[in-house]
């Protein structure tokens, strides 16, 4: 039997374009001979590159000491033989042991450094996950839930299913789903430690059970394949610079025949009366501002294309409009105040916008609030819902 039959989940490959040697899966050999082809590939890669070789272990979920030693020895030997060559080991903070273990190599050879990949992948998330935004996220979920609770069953939600909420943020959607639909299992994953801390605190305080909050990178999850009947990912593809990578993962963890449900916005379609023109101008600028930070808050109507290209079938798309007439208009106004603070505050400053632009930009938000609170006014925030079925 080939040694590789014993290690079906392990894969090593070399990408010459990126000078990157990647390892993924589980590698726990009994004897080093089992790693022969992979070690040969690494040696070959070392012989071909100039300057730097990236060692990508982001998806290396397990590696025993025997394998770690074997690969490390090849790298350490290369450092000694080729002093000009540098090695950058790309780890993921999600796989807890990798940064610690590979990080030790820098103490042996300074030419080996370790970089955690995840933080670079989320260029804009920092704007949205700071603590002050939590009350607004809760209010947003309250407003969208009024619509989604009736929409979700058309997209595969039903009692007793196993579901995952990816990019769960502060976890309030998972809690609402659990109360309303009683799935048998909910895994809620996010990359923000502060948001997960908040979600777990709420779970403890309210004695909520059955939700597994987990830290993870949505583009490379540790979750096993094909285990969920429904995978939700709300308002998140639009703030990643590579949404197709997330969709690929959502597809992977969804069971064949199960569905992936996504919601996204088209910010330039936020509207209001009176003062429609000013509102329209500002929200067009919101879309441009996010684009500057590699986020596409116009993604909503593109959902169908993204789902088709990711391999889904039976695509269903619908829209709903959150308005000032849903519940308390002050809730709507509070959300706009928070948007204005972040968009016309931190984000505009970081883009380098001048005071004249910022004043006009802010005015549109003020006018949207005015429309929301006006006794005869109407203010809206449109959301696109889409889902697709993973083929059997």
């Amino acid at each position, binding site marked *: 039997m080939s040694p590789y039959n*014993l290690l079906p989940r392990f894969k090593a490959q070399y990408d010459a374009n990126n000078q990157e040697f990647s390892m993924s899966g589980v590698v726990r050999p009994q004897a080093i001979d089992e790693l022969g082809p992979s070690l040969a590939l690494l040696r070959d890669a070392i012989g071909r590159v100039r300057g730097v070789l990236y060692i990508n272990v982001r998806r290396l979920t*397990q590696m025993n*000491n025997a394998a770690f030693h074997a690969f*490390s*020895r090849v790298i350490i030997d290369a450092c000694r033989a080729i002093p000009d060559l540098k090695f950058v080991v790309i780890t993921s903070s999600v796989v*807890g*042991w990798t940064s610690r*273990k590979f990080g030790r190599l820098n103490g042996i050879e300074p030419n080996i450094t370790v970089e955690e990949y995840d933080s670079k992948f989320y260029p804009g998330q920092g704007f949205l996950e700071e603590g002050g935004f939590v009350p607004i996220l809760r209010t947003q979920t309250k407003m969208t839930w009024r619509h989604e609770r009736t929409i979700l069953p058309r997209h595969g939600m039903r009692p007793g299913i196993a579901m995952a909420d990816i990019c769960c943020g502060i976890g309030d959607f998972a809690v609402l789903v659990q109360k309303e639909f009683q799935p048998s299992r909910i895994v809620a994953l996010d990359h923000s430690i502060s948001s997960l801390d908040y979600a777990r605190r709420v779970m403890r305080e309210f004695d909520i059970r059955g939700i597994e909050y987990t830290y993870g990178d949505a583009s490379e999850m540790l979750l096993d394949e094909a285990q969920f009947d429904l995978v939700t990912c709300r308002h998140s593809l639009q703030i990643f610079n590579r949404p197709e990578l997330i969709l690929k993962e959502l597809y992977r963890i969804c069971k064949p025949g199960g569905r992936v449900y996504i919601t996204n916005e088209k910010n330039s379609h936020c509207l209001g009366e009176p003062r429609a023109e000013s509102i329209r101008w500002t929200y067009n600028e919101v879309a441009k501002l996010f684009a500057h930070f590699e986020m596409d808050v116009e993604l909503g109507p593109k959902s169908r294309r993204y789902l088709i290209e990711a391999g889904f079938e039976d695509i269903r798309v619908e829209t709903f409009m959150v308005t000032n007439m849903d519940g308390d208009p002050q809730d709507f106004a509070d959300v706009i105040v928070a948007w204005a603070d972040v968009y016309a505050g931190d984000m505009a400053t970081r883009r380098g916008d001048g005071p004249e632009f910022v004043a006009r930009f802010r005015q549109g938000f003020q006018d949207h609030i005015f429309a929301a609170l006006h006794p005869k006014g109407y203010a809206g925030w449109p959301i696109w819902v889409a889902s697709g079925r993973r083929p059997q």
Partner: protein
Amino acid sequence: MLMGSVRNEPAGEPTFEPMIQIDMEIKTFVSAWKHCDYVSTYMAWMISQNRSDSVRHSNLFSSAFNELLEVAFRTRHADGELACRVSRHGATDRIELTIPCVPEERQFYQEAVSQVAGVEAKERYLNSVSGDLAPSREIVLLELAVDYNATLRVEEAESDAIKLVVDLPLEGLQH
């Protein structure tokens, strides 16, 4: 009886609540290397469900536990039973691995565990990584202390066996 203790437990050692135990004939266990992977993955999954981050905890626990099982796999004792027991106190999970062993192996475990406590533990570990030899069982135990903040001790078990007790404070390991 406590032997080769790395750290002297205070008189009022906290109570660890049992969570799961798997016993196997050592002959069965050593019949296939993949048993180490299967047992560590299964037990990690079972005991991590109620941790604050079950997926991450399970990954770390499996990683550490697999190394212990690989150490046990190399036993030279042909008979007896391997017992893997996991218990918990707060943020710490305790693995108690009862391994059949011959007298020389008992001595090896006692010495290996006492060396884990040495101040130069990290340095010795680094030397081993850059050395030519594949990691010895002693280095594998050392790595648990260096990378997982584990504390280890050896206890006498019933005839021809030792019990390796490893405390893993994985909840406290930083991202």
